[in-house]
């Protein structure tokens, strides 16, 4: 337990993954087909997955609303880049816990869930686990869902708003044409979606504070897991960039207004409208 933690403190674990920057221009996105891995683009450092920063924001909004919260950011992986991983601390999170082990290169979701569950249990008591909606590398959108099963906790996905009420949380969950209101007990596992709002920018004070904080690091051995135990269920056979042979037909008129007219006529010609 950290300094200043009381019985009333709500301990929130936010799951955050380091990913290649999804804003990398498509022309710079390359794959090494001999190893089935993405070649890190030159000069584009990795980032914390966008939805995970939104989950950090969700936890910070609870603090802003007056709740006494302790925010622990937890990540599983290898080759962590501290400039990226400290961003949640700079935003206002309290702790950063990394499970950093070379055995955690290229793991599948079954392994990720298992290691996250072990790290969460080892790290101590918690009241709420927040994950992102999906990680922008493998786009699986199920690590948090799997974690709720493995930990045996209630799950609410696609949360866009949350409010603490004693030992429960009131939530809004996005559905295709609106949202549901849901009450969930503590502890629960929630996945946070971008409808919550943009994550805040760290201010100078936050950045200074984050630079002084050291991540707490677990190895697999610390968690009592041997890398031999981590058998993936999905075996990656091939990773490749799909070929596109589409040829665009550009419509050019005398001016832009004329192009607009010609476009409509062309679509009619093709019986599309």
């Amino acid at each position, binding site marked *: 337990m950290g300094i200043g933690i009381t019985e009333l403190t709500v301990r929130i674990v936010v799951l955050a993954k380091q990913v290649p920057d*999804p804003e990398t221009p498509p022309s710079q996105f390359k794959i090494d087909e001999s190893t089935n891995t*993405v070649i890190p683009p030159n000069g584009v450092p990795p980032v914390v997955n966008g939805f995970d920063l939104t989950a950090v924001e969700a936890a910070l909004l609870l603090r802003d609303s007056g709740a006494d919260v302790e925010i622990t950011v937890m990540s599983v992986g290898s080759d962590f880049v501290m400039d990226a991983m400290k961003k949640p601390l700079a935003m206002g999170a309290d702790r950063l816990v990394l499970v950093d082990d070379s055995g955690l290169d290229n793991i599948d979701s079954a392994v990720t869930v298992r290691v996250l569950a072990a790290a969460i249990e080892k790290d101590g008591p918690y009241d709420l686990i927040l994950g992102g909606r999906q990680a922008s590398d*493998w786009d699986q959108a199920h690590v948090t869902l799997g974690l709720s099963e493995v930990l045996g906790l209630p799950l609410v*996905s696609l949360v866009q708003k949350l409010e603490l009420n004693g030992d429960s949380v009131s939530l809004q969950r996005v559905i295709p044409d*609106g949202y549901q*209101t849901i009450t969930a007990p503590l502890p629960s596992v929630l996945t946070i979606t971008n409808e919550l709002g*943009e994550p805040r920018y760290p201010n100078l004070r936050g950045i200074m504070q984050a630079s002084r904080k050291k991540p707490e690091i677990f190895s697999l051995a610390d968690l009592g897991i041997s890398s031999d135990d981590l058998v993936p269920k999905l075996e990656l*056979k091939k990773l490749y960039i799909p070929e596109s042979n589409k040829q665009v037909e550009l419509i050019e008129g005398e001016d*832009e207004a004329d192009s607009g007219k010609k476009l409509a*006529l062309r679509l009619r010609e093709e019986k599309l409208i």
Partner: protein
Amino acid sequence: MTSILLVAERDEQGEINQSTLQAIAAANGLLDAVVTVAISGEAPASASALAVEKIVTLAVVSIADEGIYDQATAEISALVESTSPEVVIFSKSDFGSIVGARLAFRSDSAFAADCIEISNDGGDGVSVTRPVYGGSALAEFEIASKPAIVTLRAGSYEAGNETGSPSIEAFDSGASVEQAASVTGTVAEARDGVRLEDANFVVSGGRGLGGPEPFSVLTDLANALGGAVGASRAACDAGWIDHSHQVGLTGKSVSPDVYIAVGISGASQHMAGCSSSRAIVAINKDADSNIFKEARFGIVGDWEKVLPSFLATVRELKA
């Protein structure tokens, strides 16, 4: 022989929905497929002609037990346990994504989400292909353990027109779950006109529109075409239009005859929701933007100058 359990979903009329019919086609493509379809509540009359072996009805009053799906997960887990299928297929819907993942981790089975292809060649296990990195790449995985639990992206397969005469039986899982989280209400966005997912014409706007007002021009165009309005995530996140209009990887999937993208750069995550459209039409002032690599027709230009004459001509043609 490949035994497959396929979890069906219904449309607003209670009929087996399109994604399920597509999933049946995918399942029937597996080696010596023997397909069982699970459906909640009484099977609709049309189900008795599905090209599958068997239909199993589940007791769950509504398979949509409200976004949490504790009861559905328990019932389907029990069914999987008692029938030991080699493959379990869901649609990549809200329901399928959640129940599929929960089922897999509850039973320590392999899970592959959002697949666009599934196959087996008689060896041990199945292969799946799924888009990754927002759709910038495709990944092919082999799953050796059983069951392999997958969700299928809508539009990846075409529904077949074969028919069959499946037997129909009820499955009583005996499961009755006390749900820890409870749904207290639903707030629906008002929608006028056709559903975005069903529209034959979709007019979508992006960050290039610069604000909320231009969406009224897109709405006029959509109305003239009898279609619906979509948007990029950037436009939704900016608050210019409600998120229920978002098209893409984390929004809605659409496959209209014509998808008109206005001021949208064509990021892979956006295209993931519209690339199965028959024709994509792009209006963008940047000739280098990615949307022109995906579109069939395009205008390099300012939407403010292009759209009024386009709309006027569409109206004339429709008159």
